[in-house]
């Protein structure tokens, strides 16, 4: 499955839930799947600028494929990081660099995240795209 196809499936999964509380619950459930960055590694070098709730992310390549570990103080933001991880884990950087993310605009997150928080998530995506280029 391509990133685009997987992202479409994720967007549809959220839409099928309908009720906003159920969508949040789904997001919180996803947060459990995030590869957590250990406390000792949540340092300035790994911190993503522009995130209100504190986001730390470490990106690496193994056998030419991306690995991501991350953390946020907010469980909702961890859920969003987990979504990103779900889409990108083990993919080739070239494929990621060519992808344009839609989930921020096409899921309930569009109306839920403030401009500042959306900006924070975009900072996360920008950091990933820079790493992959």
């Amino acid at each position, binding site marked *: 499955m391509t990133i685009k196809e997987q992202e479409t499936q994720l967007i549809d999964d959220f839409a099928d839930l309908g009720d906003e509380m159920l969508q949040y619950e789904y997001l919180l459930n996803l*947060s459990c799947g995030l590869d957590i960055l250990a406390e000792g590694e949540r340092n300035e070098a790994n911190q993503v600028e522009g995130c209100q709730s504190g986001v730390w992310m470490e990106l690496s390549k193994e056998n030419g494929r991306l690995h991501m570990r991350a953390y946020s103080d*907010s469980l909702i933001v961890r859920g969003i990081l987990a979504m990103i991880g779900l889409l990108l884990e083990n993919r080739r950087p070239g494929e990621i660099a060519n992808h344009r993310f839609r989930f921020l605009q096409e899921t309930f997150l569009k109306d839920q995240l403030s401009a500042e928080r959306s900006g924070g998530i975009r900072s996360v995506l920008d950091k990933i795209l820079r790493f992959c280029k």
Partner: protein
Amino acid sequence: MKTQEELRRDFPLLQRRVYGRQLVYLDNAATTQLPGRVMDAMCGHMRKSNANVHRGAYCLSEESTRLLEQAREKVCGYLGAHGAGEIVFTGGTTDSVNMVARGLEPGLTEGDEIVVSSLEHHSNFVPWQQLAARRGCAFRVVPCPDGEFDMRAFEAVLGETTKVVAVASVSNLTGSVLPIAEITRKAHEKGAVVVVDGAQAVRHRPGDIRESGCDFYCFSAHKMCGCSGIGVLYGKRARMETLSPTAFGGGMVKTVTPHNTTMEELPYRLEAGTPNFIGASALGAAVDYLKETGADEIARIERALTAQLWERLGAVDGVRILGSPEKREGIVSFVVKGVHSYDIAALLDKQGVAVRSGTHCAQVALRELGAQHAVRASVAFYNTEEEIDILCRALEKSIRMLKSYGGGL
């Protein structure tokens, strides 16, 4: 006297539903809702009398000017000020405080001291901090352990070189009521000017100025059922006369020549440019509404709701309320162990409950209270006990859900 139901019907927005549920609006410290008649006053002004003020010799301009100046008189009466010259329309509390800070600046020199409390909103903290830095003044922050102003610490810092004391009447984070009368009295003994941030108090403590004798009082219309974009700087006449204008242009000058400009009398010389005359109409109507509802009745309702809020929130498992002041009005902020405030506020929103999360422009106060962020619930006289119950049930559900997925922190 109106019933609570009748009172609520005065506010059109309170009938709204969000996510299929009745809206429970508990972010009144951020902004209050407008009664229909305040909106009518704004629309009426725009529909029938929209014209620039103080400038035209035609009917519309005179009507518009009259509405603006009537609003000024109403605010003057509401606050117990001595005359319209003591009431300056500004852009809001932040604008008012900055106006005072900049206006007092020429009179401050190196070695002078400016004193604030640790509970201050950034708008009554940063302007003074920056002013102190510019003029080489000492900047003293009076601690407020557990949300209570430390009077002894204040007395210890107060001295002959203290020139300005700036404090809130009510903290926007903890709801703590600061003893501004006593603070003013002690500050005046040392010859200091007292500037009070009345943003969180003006709706239910209109007697602040009379009772405290403070020199300046700043507030925003949108926290007393008016609209955003307008506020007031009150200043004792003698003190206002000493304020240097900080903005220059039309409306605040008498004569202008290439070599010299003479300024208008108060309050106009502190109101450069076109004032927010529509906002002033709204503010005047808001004052009328609050007076008719009754200051004592508003205070009674809000104190009862605050007490209930404090009691019910304190009973929710995991909740730590920030601050234990002897007197608290309107506001209760809290943290939940192991859960981020943003997560709580986001889930409450989905259940129809509007509260605020974050640092509340009070980072110094938050740190002193041992928190990095908090959820804040704030009531107004149109809220109900039932809404507080809804908040607490929704909060319990949110905490359960978040903790079942690991909590977060």
